[in-house]
């Protein structure tokens, strides 16, 4: 069992458990960041360097920032531990345990540890780029459209309808940043 794997998996599992057990959302967010960076490290360990960095940029850098951003914006309070919550935790824990115990052995016998002579392919940027833009050009484009659509949707959803009456929008030119005479801002 390679040392790196042990450390990383311990880190990941600990941070994952942290995400779900911390009662303060911000704490769990940060745990998730740690987890994501951990995953990036795993990618790096598996020679998928480009993915590692992209993982950091996309997940840690963009998504989690957004999440923390929203958490801050809505300043959600810590959740108190309720009985039904505990029951559900135990219940889902048990079911999760079943899943692992069932699929685990299957995985192990499906992909036995085997010695490999030829060096595994390296997930360098060039190699990935070559494959991405030749075989997978179509999915790549659709991913692009998908993200675009998501952005438009997000913008629409989050935008308050017609803006807040007593805070006219700067971009509409109605508010040049100076405080109105009425005093209310």
């Amino acid at each position, binding site marked *: 069992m390679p040392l790196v794997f042990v450390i990383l998996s311990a880190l990941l599992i600990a941070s994952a458990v942290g*995400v779900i057990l911390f009662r303060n959302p911000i704490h769990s967010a940060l745990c998730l960041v740690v987890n994501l960076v951990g995953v990036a490290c795993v990618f790096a360990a598996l020679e998928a360097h480009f993915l590692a960095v992209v993982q950091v940029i996309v997940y840690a850098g963009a998504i989690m920032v957004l999440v923390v951003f929203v958490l801050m914006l809505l300043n959600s309070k810590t959740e108190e531990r309720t009985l039904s919550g505990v029951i559900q935790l135990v219940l889902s824990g048990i079911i999760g345990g079943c899943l692992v115990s069932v699929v685990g052995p299957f995985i192990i016998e499906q992909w036995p*540890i085997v010695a490999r002579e030829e060096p595994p392919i390296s997930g360098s940027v060039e190699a990935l780029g070559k494959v991405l833009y030749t075989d997978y050009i179509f999915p790549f484009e659709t991913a692009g459209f998908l993200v675009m659509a998501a952005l438009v949707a*997000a913008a629409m*959803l989050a935008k308050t309808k017609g803006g807040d009456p007593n805070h006219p929008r700067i971009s509409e030119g109605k508010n040049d940043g100076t405080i109105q005479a009425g005093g209310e801002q």
Partner: protein
Amino acid sequence: MNYDYSAYYVLLSLVLFTIGTVGFIVRKNAIVAFMCLELMLNAANIAFVALSRRVGNLDGEIAVFFVMAVAAAEAAVGLAIVIALFRNLETTESSDAMELRL
């Protein structure tokens, strides 16, 4: 002579996936649930990369790349919804949003 430990990584991804699911089920707060979702996606990514390395071609990694794209899109929309939810119900507790119930 290096050994191929893909099975362990897939096992790791399975564990992470289970933790993610349990988290999704347990946590009431919508954003935390969303985070658990991200956890699950990452677990999948690990499995992808590990197995693509074992198989020998880059398809797995490409898949991870697309998973990330989708995750990003989903994050954007998800959080927009959470904000809209907050604006209407003054709460992010998913358990409070029960209007759809009969």
